[in-house]
């Protein structure tokens, strides 16, 4: 075992192709699809040490390590996954994948439809959290993993974890649900809808088939990301980071970039618009809105979580107002009602929803402590 934490180093994505048709929640059927994924660490002989990482809105399969020549741009959760890190790849076999409908290699709206030879675009069906869990389970089958030591995710990723524990209780020993919610509130759906409207009303959107026109709805995607970004940060951290600082000392009395915060948001928006697919953004926000394990049975969350048998660690962050601690309390209460083993931590953090991606020592200490016991219990 490493005495110090380090990076998993160079990583290479892999692609799994699935031929068997997939019936989606919406009723649509996808004939076949690819899932791109990465793995870190080694799967042990009895295949008991696998940990699945579920990604959030803009995440992907590149969770840890780096690609050749990109040492300075590691995977999105590299600070928590690696040899000697809280999710210790010396003991666990960690899997990250790009969800179906994504835009980083898994089949999604920007992929070529084999039937037409053109990008799916608007014809790509909407997928739900439950559909993702189904595809993730198929990937697990492909890798020979029956039961995960743990499944872990933040935000929309946490919803996938919850869904796993309900749909495949026997396949999840431990569930780490971080900065998440059992379903979105009206306010949260409203933010998503404004973001979608920005994209849908961009003249370059072309009803989702912009690929054929050689354009992307950059303005819409950029606005969507700027709005999202505001909601992922707290008022305090924005104040601390930017305050009312002006790029030039005096007011320009115009509509150019004047305040630092404007500059920052535009930069974030531009960066995102260059790298993310607008249809995937729409699809991911819809998956967020639809997720509600109580919906179909018109039941309580406690009732919905009844099938779950996993042990849980639920974590929230004090300044997160998009997935507030009170939403995690709902999850915890439903788990207590079902006598599930659960621990809950509310991390004092300034960074709002984004805090779940930050290397806060207490937060990481908890994940480390929790997973140490998982490893001990499995004699890893």
């Amino acid at each position, binding site marked *: 075992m490493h005495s110090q934490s380090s990076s998993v180093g160079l990583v290479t994505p892999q692609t799994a192709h699935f031929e068997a048709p997939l019936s989606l929640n919406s009723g649509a059927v996808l004939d076949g699809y690819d899932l791109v994924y990465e793995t870190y660490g080694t799967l042990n002989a009895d295949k008991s040490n696998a940990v699945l990482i579920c990604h959030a809105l803009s995440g992907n399969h590149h969770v840890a390590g780096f690609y050749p020549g990109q040492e300075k741009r590691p995977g999105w959760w590299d600070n928590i996954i690696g040899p000697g890190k809280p999710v210790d790849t010396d003991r666990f076999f960690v899997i990250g994948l790009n969800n179906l409908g994504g835009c980083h290699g898994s089949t999604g709206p920007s992929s070529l439809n084999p039937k037409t030879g053109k990008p799916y675009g608007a014809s790509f069906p909407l997928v739900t959290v439950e559909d993702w869990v189904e595809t993730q389970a198929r990937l697990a089958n492909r890798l020979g993993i029956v039961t995960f030591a743990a499944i872990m995710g933040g935000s929309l990723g946490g919803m996938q974890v919850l869904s796993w524990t309900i749909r495949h209780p026997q396949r999840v020993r431990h569930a780490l649900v971080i900065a998440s919610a059992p379903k979105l509130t009206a306010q949260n759906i409203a933010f998503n809808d404004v973001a979608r409207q920005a994209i849908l009303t961009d003249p370059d959107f072309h009803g989702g088939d912009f690929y054929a026109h050689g354009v992307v709805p950059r303005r819409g995607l950029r606005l969507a990301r700027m709005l999202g970004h505001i909601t992922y940060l707290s008022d305090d951290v924005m104040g601390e980071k930017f305050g009312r600082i002006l790029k030039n000392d005096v007011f320009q009395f115009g509509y150019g970039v004047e305040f630092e915060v404007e500059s920052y948001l535009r930069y974030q928006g531009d960066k995102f618009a260059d790298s993310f697919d607008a249809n995937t953004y729409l699809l991911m926000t819809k998956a967020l809105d639809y997720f509600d394990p109580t919906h179909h049975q018109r039941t309580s969350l406690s009732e919905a979580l009844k099938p779950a048998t996993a042990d849980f*660690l639920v974590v929230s962050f004090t300044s997160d107002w998009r997935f507030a601690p009170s939403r995690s*309390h709902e999850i*915890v*209460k439903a788990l*207590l*009602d079902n*006598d599930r*083993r*659960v*621990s*809950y*931590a*509310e991390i*004092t953090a300034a960074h709002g929803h984004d805090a779940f991606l930050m290397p806060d020592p*207490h937060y990481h*200490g*908890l994940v480390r*402590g*929790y997973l*140490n*016991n998982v490893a001990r219990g499995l004699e890893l």
Partner: protein
Amino acid sequence: MIARSDFAAIAQWVTPNAKVLDLGCGDGSLLKYLAETRNIRGYGIEIADANVLACVEKNVNVIQMDLEAGLSGFESQSFDFVILSQTLQAMHHIEQLVAEILRVGKHGIVTIPNFGYWRHRLQVLGGHMPVSKDLPYQWYDTPNIHFCTFADFETFCRDHGVQMLERHIMCDGASVTVLPNLFGKLAVYRLERRAPD
């Protein structure tokens, strides 16, 4: 493991395999002790980060929250035992808390230090607030804001619809039977809600 002297006193009343909620569970030692000696299913409530981490590291279920906010996340009568171990004296809303303990728990187990212990009385007679091994704080830095004697607590119970089923009074780990309000340092009470008249 070395158990705090009140652990064994608490454990004697906890039935095997019971479902237990420990309010202000600290580092989870009591719950771990009860899991090992009584095979309980336990949860702790704790507010301090370091204690929450200690519980998680011990594999003790812990819910990080402020007890002062009440137990609204817990269903009535959903626990066999709700324990409040040497925490009462540091709480603001005692009446609400005791009511919540007996709403959520079929039984309450409450331990309190005795402000009326004879050495404490001597210190007050001498003109000073008590400071001792068990109450090591000065008046200005103590987290303990609601001191009582055993007699006071028992009066409180009588006046608040709380039935005292059993009590165990101790001084440095030994049982005290003679003049307990004078010679006892720590009391462990088993409580339940008195049926309305």
